[in-house]
């Protein structure tokens, strides 16, 4: 049976998981839009928030249309907003399915699956249950450059804020996983990331101005100004 390539939308935060999920979706299908939910709640249950305002640069670097959709970020109510955003993407871009970067979160995966079922869309989770440290190494070997844009857990100190994910950082995360049970990929909310380059990017992101905030194992790398530069 020959199945034509599907038109897909990617739930997109600019973090490594949604960027890598997009990369995998593009192997055999057509990603026709990125869907970004912009939450007013920095502790959103569903949506990655640090530096979400910079995703338009990423979408431009990836040459994929971006659909942004606001939400107040209240638990469960934000799911109605996500439903509306995906329904709009189906209508505007003709998507046949949604792609997410969920790895372990049954909470997120369950809710997106239900929305897709309700809207008669395919749902793909190409990072589902992946070995997290293998995945971090895959990101590097495939040519992604990822910045840690936020830390939110003990014992991640200030040195992690704004650092690039490197082999040394992965080894340290493996050590912390064994000792403190943190998720190396940060899906438990331990850390957030922002991707500045990838193998399918037509341009890369240069961070022109940024600053760090850090107190009591909570830190942000606040990106104030970026620009796209040739690769």
């Amino acid at each position, binding site marked *: *049976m020959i*199945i034509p390539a599907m038109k897909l939308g990617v739930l997109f935060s600019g973090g490594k998981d949604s960027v890598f999920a997009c990369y995998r979706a593009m192997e*055999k299908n057509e990603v026709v839009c990125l869907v970004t939910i912009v939450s007013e709640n920095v502790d959103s249950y569903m949506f990655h928030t640090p530096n979400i305002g910079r995703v338009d640069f990423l979408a431009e670097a990836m040459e994929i249309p971006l659909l942004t959709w606001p939400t107040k970020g209240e638990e469960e109510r934000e799911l109605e907003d996500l439903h509306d955003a995906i329904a709009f993407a189906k209508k505007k871009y003709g998507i046949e399915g949604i792609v997410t970067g969920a790895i372990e979160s049954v909470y997120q995966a369950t809710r997106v699956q239900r929305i897709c079922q309700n809207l008669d869309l395919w749902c793909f989770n*190409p990072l589902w249950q*992946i070995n997290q440290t293998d995945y971090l190494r895959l990101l590097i070997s495939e040519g992604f450059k990822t910045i840690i844009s936020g830390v939110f857990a003990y014992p991640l100190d200030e040195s992690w804020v704004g650092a690039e994910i490197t082999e040394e950082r992965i080894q340290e995360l493996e050590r912390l996983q064994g000792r403190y049970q943190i998720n190396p990929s940060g899906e438990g909310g331990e850390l957030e990331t922002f991707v500045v380059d990838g193998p399918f990017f037509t341009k890369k992101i240069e961070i022109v101005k940024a600053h760090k905030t850090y107190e009591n194992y909570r830190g942000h790398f606040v990106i104030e100004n970026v620009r796209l530069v040739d690769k």
Partner: protein
Amino acid sequence: MILLIDLCYEKESLSRYEFVDPIVNVVKRADLSYEAVHFTELDGNEAERYDKVILCGTALKDNAYAEQMELFSWIEAFEKPLLGICTGMQVVGSVFGGDIVPRSAIGLDQINIVEETPLLGDCREIEGYHLHKYGITLPESFSIVAGTSDWIEAFKHSERPIYGILFHPEVRNRWIIERFAEL
């Protein structure tokens, strides 16, 4: 050597990362050898070359396997351990005469184990991850291992080590796959 059968809508589909690779990871972690093959590429007698077989699940909208059920007739005579997960359970049940019926569930839920078996162990409640639109009725030569006659969560062939489970053991219940590998 374990054979993992990919039931997704096409070979090397985007779904395989979600429904085949997580099983591969469990098998790899247990240091077991395996091969993953798409169901359309499996020759009728090929499964006999392996010690055990796992039929993996598919996405909710994926019913491509159901249009090619003749490719699974070999299961009827298969004597070695075989585990059908979700869609794989529907395939196993269909081969032995069960009917695929609407049974929609998404997310974590309690599963009541009602028969002690080498695969799921003692009778008790466990929590499992569901992602299915359909279930299967009980074929004649099978007994219910978990769930009820209206909603079968797991079944077993009465004479052979052939199992089906409706929920996804690769999520929160990897021990089931590890235990299957030891049958």
